[in-house]
Each structure stands twice: as structure tokens, then as C-alpha cells.
């Protein structure tokens, strides 16, 4: 098997960069770790989880998807060609890798999003199995696990008590990356370290059932009471994918931006008439939970929550989808037992 000394990740990055990859990896920036473009000298953080996710590099916060030039009174449309920069995303968590499946599905279910796909095809995802986790991690509760290889082109497994990394290509893209890595990797044998213990916090099936029948439950008010309605959770979420279109122009041309947007903000569903079908923060928070755990499964048979826990780590007001699910699950159990008697 292909091995890499754990402290040689930077050399892997350098080797790949030399082969024309743009390298994206978790890098410390002040008090936070972000997935960012790697440059020689930057150290790659393998512990913990970055505040942002792979999403940033497949579905950027803002991109120009259309362009018109103005000629006197009339518009002339300019082609905007999708650009995919050959990119290797190193040492992302398995939950991140998994999230790519959700994005693939969403950006290709009714029409194929050329801009997304161009980036996706040019992107090789190298995941790093988790040997540790924090109290916010709950992938095991939503069908994932710390050793999952879902959505990854290459998986790195810590071995020899973190001394080594086992590099296992899983897809053609992955093998190409391994090729490019060349001499940085060595052939050898090593036993993968055990992955992190992440207790299952709730029964997803039970939660789904409850959600399906409790759109109007008064409990939502309580669940959402602390929410102040920002987009921190959605923008950190690896699978949230809502966007808004905005045209901006100067006297020469007009460009159409596709910008991230989120159901957490009041403006998201506001009608021109002034009517807002989701007029309260309760309704918006409910939409977020329902979309991930009820609507997406119904439509695509996919759970749109990876259990990465970013939202609960970042929420300024301590909301957590996991906590909500636990509460729901407890209700169900209680009901269940009540039913038995």
C-alpha cells in the first residue's frame, strides 16, 4: 500500500502543485482553520475540522454566470465559459467528502449546471479519516461514519499511531493524483489506526417519521426560539446550496452574479407583494431542518445533513440541528413507551 509520513503532507501538496494541481487544504488563519488555497510554507492542519467546507470550491459564494455588454440602447450577450481549475482538496473530513454527493445531485437533478460541473470534474477530493471527534460531531446519527470513503477520490487513513498516512486511491481521478504524487509516497505495510468513537445520538428514522407528521407542531417555536436569523449555519454547511441571482452593471456591461443565499434570512422568501410565506424565524428554522432531513430524503433518498456539526459549532446562539433531533427522538421514544403501556 502507498504510505506517506504524516508530517510530509506539505511535500505531497508541493509535489501535486508541481504537477499543475491547485492545492486546497485546511490552513490555520488566526483563531480559525479554513479550507484555503495552499502555498508553500503554509502548514496543513490535520486535526479538527475547517470552518468552511469543500462546497466553497465547487459552488463559490459568488460567481458570474452571465454577461451582457451595452451598445447604445441594446444589450449584447457575452458567453461566460464555465471554468474548472484542476484542484486537489487535501485532508478534508469524510463528512465533507460525502457532502459532494448531495451537491452533485442538486446541481444535476433537473438541469445540469455547467458551472458546477466544470469545477466538480476538475476537482479531486482527498479525505482524511477521523481518529478523533468533538462533542458536535454526529455523522453516525445521520448515516455517515468517521471512516467513510463516500464521495472521496482518495482516502488517507492515519496509521501507526498517527506517524503514517495510508493513501488509498478510490477513483480514476484518485489514481491520477497518486501518480502525480510520485516519489513523495512510499510502498509499505501499516495498520490503520482505529477511527473515532462517535456515539449515535438519535434514531434518524424515528426523527423522519416525526417530521413528516409534525409540520405544525408548537415545538418548532421552542426549537427556534434562540435563532436570530443569520446565515452562519447555512454558509458553513457543506450541503446547503441555495443561491440568489443579482445583476450589476456599469455603463459598459451588465453581469449576472450567482450568490449564496439562505432560508435563514427573512428576505429569502419575501414576495414583491410584501407577503412572506415564511414570516417568522420559527418557519425559517423549521424549513432548514425539514429540507435536510425530510424533503431531500423524500425527493432524492439522500440525507442532506452530514453530521459534521459545523452549524452547531458556529451558531452564535447555540442552536444545533443535532440537539433538535435528539429532542424529537426523545419525544418519539416517550410516545413509543406510552404506546406499549
Amino acid at each position, binding site marked *: 500500500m502507498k504510505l506517506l509520513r504524516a508530517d510530509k503532507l506539505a511535500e505531497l501538496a508541493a509535489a501535486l502543485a508541481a504537477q499543475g494541481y491547485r492545492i486546497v487544504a485546511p490552513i490555520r488563519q488566526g483563531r480559525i482553520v479554513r479550507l484555503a488555497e495552499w502555498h508553500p510554507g503554509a502548514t496543513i492542519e490535520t486535526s479538527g475540522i475547517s470552518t468552511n467546507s469543500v462546497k*466553497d*470550491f465547487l459552488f*463559490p*459564494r*459568488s*460567481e*458570474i*454566470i452571465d454577461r451582457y455588454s*451595452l451598445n*447604445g*440602447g441594446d444589450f449584447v450577450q457575452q458567453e461566460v465559459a464555465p*471554468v474548472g481549475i484542476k484542484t486537489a482538496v487535501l485532508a478534508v473530513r469524510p463528512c465533507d467528502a460525502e457532502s459532494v454527493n448531495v451537491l452533485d445531485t442538486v446541481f444535476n437533478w433537473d438541469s445540469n449546471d455547467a458551472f458546477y460541473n466544470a*469545477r466538480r470534474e476538475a476537482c479531486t477530493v482527498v479525505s482524511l479519516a477521523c481518529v478523533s471527534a468533538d462533542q458536535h460531531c454526529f455523522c453516525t446519527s445521520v448515516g455517515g461514519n468517521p471512516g467513510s470513503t463516500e464521495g472521496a477520490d482518495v482516502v488517507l487513513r492515519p496509521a501507526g499511531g498517527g506517524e503514517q498516512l495510508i493513501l488509498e486511491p478510490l477513483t480514476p481521478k484518485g489514481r491520477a493524483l497518486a501518480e502525480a504524487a510520485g516519489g513523495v509516497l512510499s510502498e509499505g505495510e501499516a495498520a490503520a489506526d482505529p477511527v473515532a468513537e462517535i456515539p449515535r445520538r438519535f434514531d434518524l428514522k424515528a426523527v423522519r417519521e416525526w417530521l413528516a407528521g409534525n409540520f405544525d407542531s408548537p415545538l418548532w417555536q421552542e426549537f427556534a426560539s434562540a435563532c436570530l436569523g443569520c446565515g452562519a449555519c447555512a454558509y458553513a454547511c457543506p450541503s446547503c446550496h441555495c443561491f440568489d441571482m443579482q445583476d450589476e*452593471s*456599469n*455603463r*459598459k456591461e451588465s*453581469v449576472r*452574479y450567482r450568490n449564496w443565499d439562505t432560508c435563514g434570512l427573512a428576505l429569502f422568501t419575501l414576495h414583491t407583494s*410584501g407577503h412572506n410565506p415564511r414570516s417568522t424565524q420559527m418557519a425559517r428554522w423549521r424549513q432548514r431542518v425539514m429540507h435536510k432531513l425530510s424533503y431531500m430524503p423524500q425527493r432524492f433518498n439522500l440525507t442532506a445533513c452530514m453530521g459534521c456539526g459545523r452549524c452547531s459549532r458556529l451558531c452564535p446562539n447555540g442552536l444545533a440541528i443535532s440537539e433538535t433531533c435528539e429532542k424529537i427522538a426523545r419525544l418519539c421514544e416517550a410516545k413509543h413507551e406510552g404506546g406499549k403501556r
Partner: protein
Amino acid sequence: MARVGVFICHCGENIARTVDVAAAAAAAAKFPGVVYSVDYKYMCSDPGQQLIRKAIADHKLTGAVVAACSPRMHENTFRRAAAAAGMNPYLLEMANVREHCAWVHSDRAAATAKAIDLIRVMVEKVKRNRSLKTITVPVEPTAVVIGGGIAGIQAALDIAAGGKQVVLIEKSPSLGGHMARLSETFPTLDCSQCILTPRMVEAANHPNITLMTSSEVESVGGFVGNFEVTVRRKARYVDPAKCTGCGECWSKCPSKNIPSEFDAGLSRRTAIYRASPQAVPNQPVIDAQHCLMLTKGRCGVCAKVCPRGAINFKDADELVKVKAGAIVLATGFELWDHSAYGEYGAGRIADVIDGFAFERLASASGPTAGEIRRPSDGAEPKTVVFVQCCGSRDEKVGVKYCSKICCMYTAKHAMLYAHKVHGGRAVVFYMDIRSAGKGYDEFVRRAIEKDGAEYIRGRVSKIYRRADGKITVRGTDTLAGMPVTVEADMVVLADAVTPRADAQKLARMLGVAYDADGFFSEAHPKLRPVETAVAGVYLAGACQAPKDIPESVSQASAAAAKVLGLFSKPKLEREPIVSHVNRITCAHCRACINACPYKAIEDFNILDRSGKVLRTVSNVNEGLCQGCGTCVSVCRSKSIDLDGFTDEQVYLQIAALEPVEAGAKTEGSS
């Protein structure tokens, strides 16, 4: 989609000389939304306006931009033209390519580029202009006239004659102002008081005129048609309702040694006094600074002798509010203080006097009953030197402008002196003689040729008193090119005419502009000489610039005509440049309410059907809003906007100036 027309004026050669108007018209034709673009020699001319009217109709224009002179010049002209063609006048804007471009640049290419930018800016604005309806506000048909000199009196009488109410406010105890102090007037030498006094009395007795003497304007609120003027009526300590003006009081008053303001300090008056025998109202007031009762608390003689018990030592200032539709400023002038001229004795030589002092000496009602006596010893001066331009046309120490009336009154003084002191010698130092006006130059010639005044062209360099009491006047005769020295008994300085010291305070209360010299600014130097930039405030007399009596009177009548014109309709049409609150988005932080200079914004409760208050928001009172837009800038949620200068308009104006070649292209993605 907007259909904008662009009309570029050559202004003869004024614009076309520097700006390539044809190129500008061609460029404008390419602007998005422009369907018609043309240049023409004189847009403001009849055919020019015809062209605009026709284009509006033919091309179904939704907006028009006239690139020409400053909007201050012709915006109304062109908006009227637009209205005549059935377009809402507020859909027409002007691009100022003359004052702001053609006249200030010489580089043709640069000027043309700038002109094109200025036009694009206004095209972008016009695209977002809305049709606005002029706002009508009720007019209070009462005029306030500030200043009771000849200009104020004339304005008040003319307005009153027009059947409207007037409140005439005079700071001093009596009407008349400076004119009441003059002996004779040029060029006819008729007695000033003989012609003025009847007007004073008429003003005081006119049923439509409320006279407020010893009164000053404290503050001014409101706006055209609806001013609220707060007047401080100063304590006079004499009840006008009881006083008959019999004179018992002032004949008995013990403090008798107060220099008379009216007589320029040449006579003494008592503490309870009338300004002059011809004072209107002919009632005394007590001068609190010098009254023993009011200063030391003992005396009270006047109160004892007054047969009507009119004296009231407890009298106090009172504030009176006056509602008025228009205001006429007639605050007049004062003389420059020649003590600034050290070389002229710094005002310390008793026999070096100003023009007013001489007027009083020459006046039959004056301290010397019309005999010319010098102040120091009462002797008849055998030689009098008159110095013109004292402080005038002297940027360093005095004022830079010409005071206009000095040439004429100095000639008059020389003449009066010759008539009163036979064999007396009158010497006049002058820089130029400016005697334009009907019968004016003839008048000066008469002083020189008939009455033998010696005119010396040149400035006086030094005036000093010799031990023997003679006053030596040194100067140069610039025509003869030699120094001159005159031994005089008295010197009369024609001090410069300056604005009143407190004029600027008043201007600020009203928001009226004043020029570098401190005179009130007219709205237009040629076409609107009696209006100020503040609607409903007009100018009369020397508060606007040095003027003689006939000029002051004619301007006063002109101001009166303006006021009567304003009052001729019960309602007044106002520019609809006012703010509006977006009640859906207003967060009611009350920042706008705090900031509004006109208290035009108030709380507004949004009620449900049952009358319960759902939300409170801000609301603009259109009648009070003057359209400054300060509220717009303090509103964080942009829930208040200003018609005519909306956020959207300004945003697009700025966008229209973005240089397109600049701004590096970068791929939008990260």
C-alpha cells in the same frame, strides 16, 4: 423603456467655442434610453423652445435634458416649455455645460469629454424622474417689514395700500431711520423731514399697518407663506396707551447729560426722551442705562409729574409672535467707523466729524438750529475740508467697494456750507466724482461753479490738530502733481456705507445669503434684484448695497409689488421637492425626526381596524418639508427618500461616471 431627448445649446459661441456640441449630440444619441439628440444655437430662444416642444410631441419623450447654462439661469424657462408641450415639468433637467464647463476650460477635447459626462449624468437622472405635482400651501396675507427707515416705510405703505396687513418692526423708539436725520436732500435740496415726516405719520396711522417700535426680531421659523416671526418688544417704561407726549417728563428729568444718538452726539438728551421732536410715535421712552430709578432705584420724578400715570418702571421686554406670509428686509446701513484711520486722528479730533454730524449741524431742527458751528468750541468754521472715500475703495483698512452716495452728499454739504457761511471756504478731496443720476452731475457742477467749492483730486494722507486749534489737512493734488496742505477749522469725512453690524445674525435666522462685504444677496444680480434665494423674503434699501433715497424707495416699492403678487392668491404653489417615508420599512429610530431642521417629521401611528396601534413610524408634513434631504442621510434603512433627488437617481448619476476602461476584469469565482 425611457424615451429621453437631449438638447444641447451653443449659447451663441459661449458653449460651442469650447465644447464640440455636434460631437456631444452624437455621443448623447448613443446613450441608452436617448431617442433624440440635437444641438442648436440658442435653446432659450423662441425657436429653441419650439424645437423642444416639437421634439417632446413628435418623439413621445418621457424625459428631456437641456445641456446649456446653469439651471439657476433657465431651468424654469425650459420646464415651462416642457409643460407647454404636455410633459410634466419635473421630467426635464439641465446639464450645466456653460458655467461648469465651457467657461472654465480651454482644452476643447477635455471640455467636450466633460460635457458628455455631465449630459450622461443628467440623462441617467431623468430616466428615473417621476412626474411631480406642485404642492399648494395656504398663504398668511400679512407681511413683516423689518426696518423703519424710508425703505421700510415705503414698502409698508405700498403693501398696506394694496389692502394687505403689514407689521412694521423698528429697532429704535422712532420711525424714520437715517433719512429723518438729514437736513436737505440732493439734488433738489428739499428738506428731508418735510418730505419724510408725513410718510412716517401715515405709516403709523394706517389701518393696515401695525407699528412695532423699540422692537427687534428674535427668531424666524416657517417658510414662504407661513413664516412665524418672534419679535422682542423692548421695555419702554411708558404706557403708549396713556402717554399724550405732553413732555412734562423729559422737561423735569434730572439726568440731562446723555449724548443724543439722533444728533450724532452734538446735543444732550435726558434719560426719558424722544428721539426727536418729529419722532413717530411721538411718545418718550426711558433709557434704562441712564435712568436713576432703574439704575439706582431712586428718583421717579417723571412718574410723579406724569399727569396720566403713564410711567411704569416695572415694564419688561415681551416676546410677540407674528404669523406672516412674506418678509421684507429693510435694515439699512451704518457708517464705517473712521477711527480705524490713525492718520486721520483716529476719531479723537473733535472737529473731524462724519457726514451725519454735518447733517445735524446743517439741519434747522438740529442742535445749532441750522448754523454751522464746530463741535469743539462752537465757533463758525471759516474753512471746512470734505474728504470723500473715507474707508471706501480701500481694501486694506476700509472696504473695497464704492459707497456710491458720498460724492453726492459731499457736494450737497459743500453747497449748504457755502449758503450758510458766507465767505467760507469749502475744500473737497476726491478720488473720482461719481454723479450718475438724474440731475446729479448738474448738482455737483453747481457746487463747484456757483458755490465755489474747491475740488482737489487726491487722497488725504494726514489730518492733525495744531496747538492753536487749527486742523492741518495734508494731501496730494494728483492733477497738479503736487502736495497740498489746507489749514481747516473743521473736517467732514464721507465715511463708507457698511451693512449693519447685526445684519448677518438676521440673515442666518432667515437663511438669506450675504456677500463678502456683508450686504444681503439678491437672488439674481440683474433679473431678481429684490428677491433673496429664500422664497418669500425680499430686500429693500441699503441693506442690499449702498443706495440713495430714490433708489431705496423704488426698490421698496418693487419689494412691495412682489409681496402683493405673492398675496394675490390664497394658496401658494411650492416646488414638490419633499421627503416621503416608506412606512413598511421604517424602523422608527426617530433619527430623521431629530435631524429635521424644520420639525417637519413626526410620529405616525399605524392602526388596525379597531383603532389599536400596530406600529409607529415617521411621517413627513409636506407643508413644512423644505427638501434639504438631511433625513435621507440619517436613515440607516433608507426608509425615507427625497423627491427630485431620490436614492435611485443619485445612484445612477454616480454609476454614469464610472470610467469603463478602468476596473480589471477578474473571474467572479474564488
